[in-house]
């Protein structure tokens, strides 16, 4: 069934690509049809960036097709199907990216219901649209790839509008409330696994299911009277529960010792478990609350676009596994971890990220862009020393990622775009453990601190 949907999706896209030669969406009996298809290539000198980039990968693409129609003067219906791939994320499954019914009461008040694009920062709503921006990869400090599905769209209802402020410009606002479908094989789940704080003890987890209780997002933009200057602020929040399979890595000395020293632990382990990582019979549960705030600024002057954003996200995470944590309570206590009723609460922590970017269009066909982006997964541990001390990571440079990017964009014609991009990276935060397994050679580092990432992408849009 999934392959049939994929074939229909690609066939429709291909047909549209063949008949379209116009920059506007194709129109058929009052229905506007737009689409894009892009194929990229990623290569890194070290570290796998959400795919097997060290070996070079073409598992980096996006394709979308949308249909929209104005049913009446005030009511608009629309839908977009999207397929994307980035390593193990997406795998070109066709998903309903957005599907909305939009009723525009007044310019200052509109109501949208359905599956809406999630408002966050300046560019989150358009991050799938390669053709409307200079860069291939948005700055990872504010637009983290692992969170992409989690903040791509929201199912629920939203209010929006534009309010004139006379001589002071105008305000645009969005309020959204609903929920999100988070798959256990997507980036957010992998990120959650990396937050599991017992990896140093040889306890691993594989997230099986995520259930989002609620999500909200709000954004306000002030289009100032200084031509080209936009100031904005946005916030979003999440609460979700997850559960996963817990494994004991018996190659880890601490885990092997625990298994020998604590008879109750042996009773929790699957007797038929594998020789290296053994299954622990009781599942682990997660409770996660995340709240994020972003301040944004964009200034356009003729062919120059300058942007800067700052984002801070605060997390409250707790892990529950009564049989396991109660059994390991003495060991955990010795490692500074307190167990209360089979629950471990991680101290609240905040990640921070910021970037500045500059892009200039030299000619109608050539644009150059650059940005500097900085991200700290824990603002109180910017040098990564605490992570190492707590056994969360073996290398302190997991505590930051500083990225200098340089991009060239070539508009071959109205429909075709080619981009080339280079990143000089310092640090290894945001990289996922699932993409960067522990090396078999104990003398080899799992992550490299200084590395480069190259990206190329070609896009067709209509």
């Amino acid at each position, binding site marked *: 069934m999934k392959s049939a949907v994929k074939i229909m999706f690609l066939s429709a896209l291909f047909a549209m690509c063949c008949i379209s030669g116009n920059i506007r969406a194709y129109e058929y009996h009052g229905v506007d049809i737009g689409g894009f298809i892009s194929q990229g290539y990623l290569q890194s000198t070290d570290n796998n960036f959400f795919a097997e980039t060290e070996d070079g990968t073409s598992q980096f693409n996006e394709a979308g097709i949308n249909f929209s129609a104005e049913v009446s003067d005030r009511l608009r219906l629309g839908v977009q199907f999207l397929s994307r791939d980035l390593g193990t994320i997406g795998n070109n499954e066709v998903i309903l990216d957005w599907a909305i019914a939009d009723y525009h009461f007044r*310019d200052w008040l509109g109501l949208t219901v359905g599956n809406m694009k999630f408002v966050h920062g300046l560019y989150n709503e358009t991050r799938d649209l390669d*053709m409307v921006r200079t860069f291939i990869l948005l700055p990872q400090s504010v637009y983290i790839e692992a969170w992409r599905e989690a903040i791509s769209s929201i199912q629920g209802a939203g209010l929006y509008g534009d309010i004139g402020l006379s001589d002071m*410009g105008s305000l645009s606002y969005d309020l959204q409330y609903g929920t999100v479908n988070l798959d256990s094989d997507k980036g957010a789940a992998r990120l959650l696994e990396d937050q599991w704080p017992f990896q140093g003890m040889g306890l691993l987890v594989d997230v099986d299911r995520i259930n989002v209780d609620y999500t909200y997002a709000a954004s306000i933009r002030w289009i100032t009277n200084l031509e080209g200057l936009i100031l904005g602020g946005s916030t979003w929040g999440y609460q979700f529960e997850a559960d996963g399979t817990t494994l004991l890595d018996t190659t880890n000395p601490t885990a092997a010792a625990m298994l020998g020293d604590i008879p109750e632990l042996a009773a929790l382990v699957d007797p038929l478990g594998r020789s290296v990582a053994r299954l622990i019979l009781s599942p682990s549960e997660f409770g996660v609350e995340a709240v994020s705030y972003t301040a944004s600024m964009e200034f*356009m002057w003729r062919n120059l676009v300058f942007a800067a954003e700052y984002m801070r996200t605060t997390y409250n995470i707790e892990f529950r596994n009564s049989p396991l944590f109660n059994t390991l309570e003495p060991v955990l206590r010795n490692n500074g971890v307190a167990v209360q009723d089979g629950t471990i609460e991680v101290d609240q922590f905040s990640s921070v990220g910021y970037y500045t970017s500059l892009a200039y269009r030299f000619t109608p066909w050539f644009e150059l862009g650059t940005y500097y982006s900085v991200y700290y997964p824990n603002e109180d541990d910017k040098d990564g020393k605490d992570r190492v001390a707590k056994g969360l990571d073996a290398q302190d440079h997991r505590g930051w990622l500083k990225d200098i990017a340089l991009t*060239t964009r070539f508009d071959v014609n109205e429909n075709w775009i080619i981009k080339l991009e280079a990143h000089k990276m310092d640090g290894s935060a945001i990289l996922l453990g699932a993409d960067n397994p522990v090396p078999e050679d104990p003398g080899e580092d799992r992550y490299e601190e200084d590395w480069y990432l190259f990206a190329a992408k070609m896009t067709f849009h209509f």
Partner: protein
Amino acid sequence: MKLRSIPLIVRIVLACMVLSVFGGLIVPAGHAASEVMVVANDSVPVKSLSRDAVQEIFLGRKTRWSDGQKITLATLKEGDDHSDFLRMYVGKTPQQFKNYWKSQVFTGRGKAPEAFTSPDELAEFVTNTPGAIGYLPQRAYQNQLKSLMIE
């Protein structure tokens, strides 16, 4: 893989910049503006607009005239008149304007303006579409359509 790719990328970037500069293809900072006038259908209930109002209309932030009539946008696809209008009244380059509307359409936020290859087509559309607003070269179309004064 070592850093062999860096010089290649840097070479491509530099080559494009040099080509741009010496090929005279740099986007002109401000060539002599053609005389563009804002035109509207006879049903439009205003005779003048502020420059900010023109910007809000062409960016889809203002969608109704004062009598509740829906605003329908008409634009040219390319050319100096298109560029000059966008620069003078919307504060965007043609590329930025195109990207803005692509973003609106591809995120479900709006319907792109009607776009015409020739001023004649645009003039005909504005004449025949209630609530329509567009822009035309002043010299060729003066007194042919209702023109709005921009304050």
